């Protein structure tokens, strides 16, 4: 079962529950003003109230107090006192003068009119919300059909068509997300399920020998010392407990703990030259939420094999700096004011981009939003990671330009948790990945060439 699906199911259930509660509150609320039906004009309301009032004054014995309703729902206590203004004074006090009673009647009517207005507005808002949700659910339903029946069976011919690209930008429905990601990432490395099993078996062997403290004599891994490997496996253990800890599914005893452990362990056996690097656990976790273990491993290995990911996960500092430099070219082009502000404050991309790129935004953005970023990243490649960064910066440009270094750094390393998806995508859409007619890849290549020449020309400048 897809976990994402489960999540969205729970969310819908919750939303429905909340809605039901609201309706109930609504009913109760109206009872407080007598049996005034919804959607009657206010003119009639006041007449009716007037009548009720007359009934009431005509009958000295107290009618059922509105407070009785209040007991059922304490949320409405403030409103419940509204009708009290019409009550007669207690017997031990002088009676209400007629003009004051009249004033109270007026005030009461005004209050009722206001409350009615509020209720009507609220009802309209809820109706709109409901319609919006139905619309979204329907469009997701339609999208699932399109993906399953039209696009996936004809992947090779359709994936780069205009129609598919547009649909893709809207977000891939969770039920087909894994399949689309797998297809888009591809399997250049030709990894089979059998290869995954072999790597996993080897990883398990190592865990066993480590826990029993047995000595290892494996000549094939020469160059990667036992200590290194031990450290790598130890790091995986430490990091798994710190991967989406709030979801409580990857931690020891959680349903996805073993899967995450397996993928990361198998990868260190598959690519001992790369090993385990922090950030990987987040990427593997997101894949696990959308794919079976072996397919997640295949996607994981191929994803990390992309040039940008390889540069970062091998911590090729020179190449990383080239990526940052390319990013800054587009930063200056798209957001010159903010760029100057960052420069003035010495806020360099390595301060905020490292986390974003290493975890592909899965740590810094809400998970469902991060998945939407991954959707388009799978479509557009590494360029979209940097475009997203610029979209985020643009979205918060006004706030950021008012901040000093430390507050900007804090803000960017801990983005708001309620970052709205549609606003972010709208912001990203306005970012031009074109600088003086050069595209991302061209800018990057030119900078790489420059840095290579600089290295050759003046080796003393190298750090």
């Amino acid at each position, binding site marked *: 079962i897809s976990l994402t699906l489960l999540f969205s199911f729970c969310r819908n259930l919750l939303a429905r529950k909340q809605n039901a509660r609201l309706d109930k509150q609504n009913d109760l609320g109206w009872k407080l003003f007598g049996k005034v039906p919804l959607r009657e004009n206010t003119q009639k309301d006041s007449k009716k109230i007037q009548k009720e009032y007359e009934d009431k004054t005509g009958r000295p014995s107290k009618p059922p107090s509105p407070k009785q309703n209040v007991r059922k729902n304490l949320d409405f206590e403030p409103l419940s006192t509204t009708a009290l203004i019409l009550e007669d004074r207690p017997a031990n006090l002088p009676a209400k003068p007629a003009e004051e009673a009249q004033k109270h009647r007026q005030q009461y009517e005004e209050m009722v009119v206001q409350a009615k207005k509020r209720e009507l507005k609220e009802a309209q808002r809820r109706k709109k919300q409901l319609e919006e949700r139905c619309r979204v659910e329907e469009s997701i339903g339609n999208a699932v059909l399109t993906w399953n029946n039209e696009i996936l069976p004809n992947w090779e011919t359709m994936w780069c068509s205009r129609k598919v690209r547009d649909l893709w930008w809207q977000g891939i429905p969770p039920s087909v997300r894994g399949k689309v990601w797998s297809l888009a990432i591809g399997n250049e490395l030709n990894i089979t399920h059998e290869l995954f099993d072999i790597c996993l078996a080897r990883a398990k062997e190592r865990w066993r020998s480590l826990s029993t403290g047995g000595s290892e004599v494996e000549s094939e891994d020469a160059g990667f010392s036992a200590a290194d490997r031990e450290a790598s496996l*130890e*790091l995986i253990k*430490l990091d798994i407990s710190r991967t989406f800890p709030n979801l409580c599914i990857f931690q020891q005893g959680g349903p996805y703990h073993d899967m995450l452990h397996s993928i990361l362990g198998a990868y260190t056996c598959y690519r001992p030259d790369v090993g385990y690097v*922090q*950030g990987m656990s987040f990427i593997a976790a997101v894949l696990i939420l959308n794919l079976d273990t072996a397919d997640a491993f295949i996607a994981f290995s191929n994803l990390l094999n992309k040039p940008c990911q390889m540069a970062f996960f091998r911590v090729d500092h020179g190449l990383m700096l080239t990526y940052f430099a390319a990013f800054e070219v587009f930063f200056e082009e798209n957001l010159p004011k903010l760029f100057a502000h960052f420069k003035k404050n010495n806020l360099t991309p390595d301060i905020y981009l*490292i986390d974003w790129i290493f*975890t592909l935004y899965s740590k810094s953005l809400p998970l469902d939003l991060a998945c939407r970023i991954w959707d388009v990243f799978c479509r557009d490649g590494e360029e979209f990671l940097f475009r997203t960064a610029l979209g985020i910066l643009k979205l918060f440009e006004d706030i950021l330009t008012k901040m000093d270094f430390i507050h900007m750094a804090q803000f960017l*390393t801990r983005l708001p948790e309620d970052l709205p998806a549609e606003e972010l995508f709208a912001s990203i859409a306005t970012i031009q990945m074109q600088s003086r007619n050069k595209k991302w890849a061209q800018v990057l290549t030119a900078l790489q060439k420059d840095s290579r020449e600089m290295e050759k020309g003046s080796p003393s400048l190298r750090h």
Partner: protein
Amino acid sequence: MQVPHKEHLYKLLVIGDLGVGKTSIIKRYVHQNFSSHYRATIGVDFALKVLHWDPETVVRLQLWDIAGQERFGNMTRVYYREAMGAFIVFDVTRPATFEAVAKWKNDLDSKLTLPNGKPVSVVLLANKCDQGKEVLLNNGLKMDQFCKEHGFVGWFETSAKENINIDEASRCLVKHILANECDLIESIEPDIVKPHLTSSKVAPCWWVMQQS
């Protein structure tokens, strides 16, 4: 007469092996809370702590919480620039993290010095002391010796979980940084001190001394 308000801004590094509790210590120190659910730090995280050092002095600490994986070495070293002090943290329940302490210290000293060429003040934190495995620390004298040999200005057994010794450790570090800064003044020619610096929000220590 009103006492001039002195403000200092210091960049402090928090370094040490992965998972020793750097983020937890900072969260405890700055936000006064603890959670066992912190996510791994990738790259660097930030926090700001304002200390009312004495009635006339405010100290602002910019805390740089740096990812602990050794692999990130070259990448994270750029974060050391212009720091005035550091905490090196290890986990008392994992001896390997203590073995790495000397490596972190050497690395720091080789990449960062004060303007006068001296190493920055560093305090050693033996974290997770609430876990009861004090194998490493049963001999305080040995630790004192270790700190002396490796040039730490002090060491503390800390617990972010139980809030033990974190404020004390920070005061110790800030005290040394303030003292260091005053040493720096002496090496600076007096004619460099220009009155217009009074307008500067962050008064360097040597200027503060001139006024007092």
